[in-house]
């Protein structure tokens, strides 16, 4: 690992040589790609124009038009419910036992909307601007503007559904400011915003179930996409209870299967979050965009041992009052923190970034924490030989504000921390460490949210579209609901207006081939009779990804990672052990399929990261930083979306670039010094 | 809800009944006068014992409804969990709440015996006399509780009744939808506990005092 503290050798920070290509030999250059659906003209009118131009499926015809929606998170449940209301025949799938349990439920902080209820100068344009800037100028202007426009309708819709947002004494909705923006535009429901929004969408979905327009298939995992004559026409799923492989056809398929942060094994995502649905679509021809853009959250509870199964996020708001430090001397790392005198503590964020101190952006806070631990100054239990944790100390705040004020503000977070770690944060400093939290990358979609496979639409975290290289806090929920309630239902009709398409024959060669490949993979797992568990592979893959494709990436590290991943993948296919039977519930088998896809995704993420020799948003290349160790973008060379085409296992992926142009905002380098 | 309404009727009845019984402290005449009075309420509008009969029919109907509901609930609960837990542990429920059915059953058995004892057959356990031979109500009462095991039967029944009420009163408030917030819930529970003690305690006084020889013929 190169040293990346502020003493970094400035010779490394030079602008990239224009024809330098770290990833040469790992990929093939393809034709550029463009989003042809976004109308031109004034930004404010584009969405209206598109809605007007999008064809409408004849209402009488809708009962003959069918839609498959994979995923019941905010994006999927909202889409399925709305399409059901519109009169289409909808089938909705999720791997959990109930649609209400999708990972969206875990979101804590809130949801943004440009309502300007506080009269503090917020507007659609400001939300648009903040999102583009927050995404480090790697998102499309048209998409982001639409997102900001639609954000307002989301709040209206959710309130009408009975989502109990926080309210003021007067009975009006409350807002807070979130993630360092200057206006209060975040709507919230205590620390359970995602839950309340999802329950709202889920209830709307169940209403359609009762109305007979939507049929829900819980504990059904999509394992293959069916493409017939170049169009997405259905999916193959495994019934996770009976093990049965079932085929469902439709006129259009919507993927809303969430993010793939679990490629890192440890993340704040739900245990079952996976990339399988997206990846199978990718293998069938859908391009995968910007897979390396990963968001890492600085305030998670550290790993406590090798048994760890997931990481728990604690709200960023803790950094408002807590001070982050590590011991100056390695020898102090084992000591009780309260016995370490003030002069032996290194409040490193305050030292390096005097202007922002503990409130530097997520990626900087995360990277510096890793640097401290890599230097051997981490605290907490040693896991695999390293202490991975830094202190987040409330002693000063307790003195300044008093115990009660702190309890009032952070009480439930402190309780959660105490329950998980067994330590009392009122008396001992908390320990925190960064964790993978969100992926900005995903399947490439146009303005209509349609992928490169006609008839395959992608919404929510599963697509790449709106956050550029970094996502603002409270914007993922906004995007999921925008896509699900308002965008997709209005764009998908343009495609459906061509339908209903010819019925797919059960014995169509494409269908049979898809079924056989699914069965073959299952048979392979059941018959390998190896020695290592699925989880052990997943854990090892995650370590590789975290080490080399995590908070900081370098060309050497990424190349090494690619080699490691390939050999681990080979071993996996020869040596994995899946017991039990494929004809009943078999959780090892479920995970094996997911891990198989994570291997291939992980490799592509490394290649994508290798290609992008710049630092932007959640992607930090050691080779591209300023003298101060700040992320350095190279707009001249990398202001594009990297959309990757699958060409086969052990074949080089093809890179299609979509150029990003900024007509309405000016690109600026950020600075937090 | 039928359960709760019938339950509440019972509560009213037992309170009135207890008041009546406590007249035993007033001595022979006071008590008998009450027994007589019961029979003439509503006269001349109603025939002799008319009110009493109306009242009895009401009570009987309530018991039928109450027991009917109890049986239905019991059966539903049985069907709702046919495979039992290997280990169970109670976290919050009171003993009273979990013994409603057995408690109710005890009360039912008791009432049958009680009616034999006092109303229908009028068995005097002391003298073996039945019917009007058993003497006037007051004497019957004193004779009954002079027998220690009769007193024990009554006391056991009263414990069961107390427990039944302890849960039943709060429960009926809940079932009737009256306990819509924290405070109402706490109040209902408190009233349940107090009434249970008052009723069980109040009823117990007579048998105990008879046995102890304070109340005599």
């Amino acid at each position: 690992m190169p040293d990346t503290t502020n003493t970094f050798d400035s010779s490394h920070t030079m602008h990239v040589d224009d024809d330098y290509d770290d990833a040469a030999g790992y990929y093939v250059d393809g034709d550029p790609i463009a989003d042809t659906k976004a109308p031109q003209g004034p930004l404010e009118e584009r969405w209206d124009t598109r809605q007007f131009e999008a064809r409408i499926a004849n209402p009488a015809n809708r009962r003959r038009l069918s839609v498959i929606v994979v995923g019941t998170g905010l994006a999927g449940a909202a889409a399925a419910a709305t399409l059901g209301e519109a009169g289409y025949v909808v089938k909705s799938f999720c791997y959990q036992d109930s649609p209400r349990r999708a990972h969206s439920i875990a979101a804590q902080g809130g949801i943004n909307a440009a309502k300007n209820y506080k009269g503090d100068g917020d507007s659609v344009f400001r939300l648009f601007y903040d999102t583009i800037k927050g995404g480090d100028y790697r998102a499309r202007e048209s998409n982001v503007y639409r997102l900001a426009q639609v954000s307002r309708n989301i709040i209206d819709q959710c309130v009408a559904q009975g989502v109990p947002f926080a309210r003021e004494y007067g009975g009006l909705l409350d807002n807070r400011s979130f993630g360092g923006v200057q206006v209060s535009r975040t709507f919230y429901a205590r620390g359970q915003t995602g839950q309340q929004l999802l329950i709202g969408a889920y209830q709307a979905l169940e209403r359609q179930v009762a109305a007979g327009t939507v049929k829900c298939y819980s504990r059904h995992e999509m394992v293959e996409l069916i493409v017939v004559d170049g169009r997405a026409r259905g999916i193959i799923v495994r019934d996770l209870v009976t093990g049965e492989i079932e085929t469902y056809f439709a006129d259009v398929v919507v993927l809303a299967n969430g993010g793939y942060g679990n490629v890192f094994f440890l993340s704040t995502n739900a245990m079952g979050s996976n990339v399988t649905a997206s990846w199978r679509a990718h293998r069938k021809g859908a391009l995968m965009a910007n897979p390396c853009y990963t968001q890492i959250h600085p305030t998670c509870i550290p790993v406590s041992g090798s048994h760890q199964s997931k990481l728990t996020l604690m709200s960023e708001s803790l950094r408002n009052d807590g001070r982050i430090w590590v011991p100056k001397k390695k020898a102090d790392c084992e000591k009780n923190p309260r016995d370490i005198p003030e002069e032996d503590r290194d409040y490193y964020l305050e030292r390096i970034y005097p202007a922002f101190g503990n409130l530097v952006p997520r990626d900087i806070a995360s990277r510096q924490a890793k640097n401290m631990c890599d230097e051997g100054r981490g605290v907490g239990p040693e896991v695999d030989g390293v202490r991975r944790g830094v202190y987040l100390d409330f002693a000063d705040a307790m003195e300044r504000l008093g115990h009660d004020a702190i309890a009032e503000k952070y009480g439930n977070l402190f309780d959660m921390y105490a329950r998980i770690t067994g330590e009392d944060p009122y008396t001992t400093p908390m320990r925190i460490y960064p964790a993978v939290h969100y992926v900005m990358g995903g399947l490439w979609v146009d303005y209509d949210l349609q992928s490169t496979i006609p008839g395959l639409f992608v919404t929510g975290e599963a697509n790449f579209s709106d956050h550029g290289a970094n996502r603002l806090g409270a914007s993922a929920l906004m995007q999921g609901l925008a896509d699900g309630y308002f965008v997709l239902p209005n764009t998908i009709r343009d495609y459906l207006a061509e339908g209903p398409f010819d019925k797919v024959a059960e014995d169509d060669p494409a269908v049979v081939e898809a079924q056989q490949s699914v069965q073959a993979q299952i048979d392979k797992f059941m018959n390998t009779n190896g020695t290592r568990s699925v989880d052990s592979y997943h854990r090892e893959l995650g370590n590789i990804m975290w080490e080399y494709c995590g908070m900081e990436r370098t060309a050497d590290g990424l190349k090494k990672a690619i080699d490691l991943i390939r050999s681990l993948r080979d071993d996996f296919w020869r040596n994995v052990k899946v017991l039990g039977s494929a004809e009943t519930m078999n959780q090892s088998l479920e995970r094996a399929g997911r891990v198989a896809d994570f291997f291939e995704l992980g490799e592509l993420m490394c290649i994508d990261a290798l290609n992008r020799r710049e630092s932007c948003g959640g992607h930090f290349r050691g080779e591209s930083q300023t003298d101060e160790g700040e992320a350095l973008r190279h707009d001249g060379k990398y202001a594009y979306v990297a959309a990757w085409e699958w060409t086969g296992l052990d074949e080089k992926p093809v890179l299609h670039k979509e150029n990003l142009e900024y007509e309405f905002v000016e690109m600026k380098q950020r600075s937090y010094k | 809800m039928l359960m709760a309404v019938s339950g509440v009727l019972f509560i009213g009845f037992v309170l009135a009944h207890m008041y009546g019984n406590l007249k035993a402290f007033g001595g022979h005449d006071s008590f008998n006068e009450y027994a007589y009075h019961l029979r003439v309420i509503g006269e001349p509008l109603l025939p002799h014992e008319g009110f009493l009969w109306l009242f009895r029919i009401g009570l009987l109907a309530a018991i039928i409804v109450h027991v009917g509901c109890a049986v239905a609930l019991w059966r539903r609960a049985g069907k709702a969990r046919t495979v039992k837990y290997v280990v169970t542990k109670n976290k919050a429920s009171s003993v009273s709440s979990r013994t409603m059915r057995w408690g109710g059953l005890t009360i039912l058995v008791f009432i049958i015996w009680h009616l034999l004892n006092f109303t229908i057959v009028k068995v005097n356990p002391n003298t073996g006399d039945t019917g009007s031979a058993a003497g006037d109500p007051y004497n019957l009462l004193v004779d009954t509780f002079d027998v220690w095991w009769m007193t024990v039967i009554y006391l056991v029944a009263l414990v069961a009744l107390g427990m039944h009420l302890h849960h039943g009163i709060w429960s009926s408030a809940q079932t009737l939808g009256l306990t819509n917030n924290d405070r109402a819930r706490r109040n209902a529970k408190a009233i349940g506990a107090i009434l249970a003690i008052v009723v069980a305690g109040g009823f117990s006084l007579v048998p105990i005092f008879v046995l102890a020889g304070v109340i005599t013929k």
Partner: protein
Amino acid sequence: MKLTLNIWRQADSASPGKIHNYELDEVSEDMSFLEMLDVLNEELNAKGEEPIAFDSDCREGICGMCGLMINGEAHGPEVTTTCQLHMRSFKDGDSITVEPWRADAFPVVKDLVVDRGALDRIIAQGGYISVNTGAAPDAHATPVPKDKADRAFEAAACIGCGACVAACPNGSASLFLGAKITHLGELPQGQAERDSRVVNMVGQHDHEGFGGCTNIGECTAACPKEIPLDVISRLNWDLHAALRHGK
């Protein structure tokens, strides 16, 4: 620490099940209960024995997917979900019995996994406010008094885990049901459908084979979100009102 685990194993809903005994050494108190089971599963896998199936997803106490009966207590001894229960709540040498939720409306799927689809079907019978997408008025059009909003929120916190059913001696889902009735019934938006909602949802509840509530109160004690008993009172009140209105 060292533990003896007595765990219910059942191949599928049709087969009979029984308790199996396992010994597990080196359990760290920092493990969550489910991580402890993960470790046991790794050991079983290594020995060639099929791992134990159990449900979980978020592992942070919000999705409601996890849920085990631990020594006779739904979600174990703390007021939290199974995934947030940590091994420091147990001592070295403890013997722990783990069973699936038991209710005929929650058939066992495998080992410790049950099917809680009945809860979804109850919601489908009215656990929503009928408003089509795009038809909503401005969010500030109807203010909601803070106390009502708070009460609705408290009830809306239900995660649908089913612990209330598992703990109720009658196998009743009244707490779950009451939570939804209260959540929607406290809000002005929820008034129009108030009567039909309660009647239909209760009807579905009974139809699914859940038991009737006799106000025992085990449910609320087991509820990881501490949904209070007064939601059941609200449920009854609304039900009687609806019946009076002739629904």
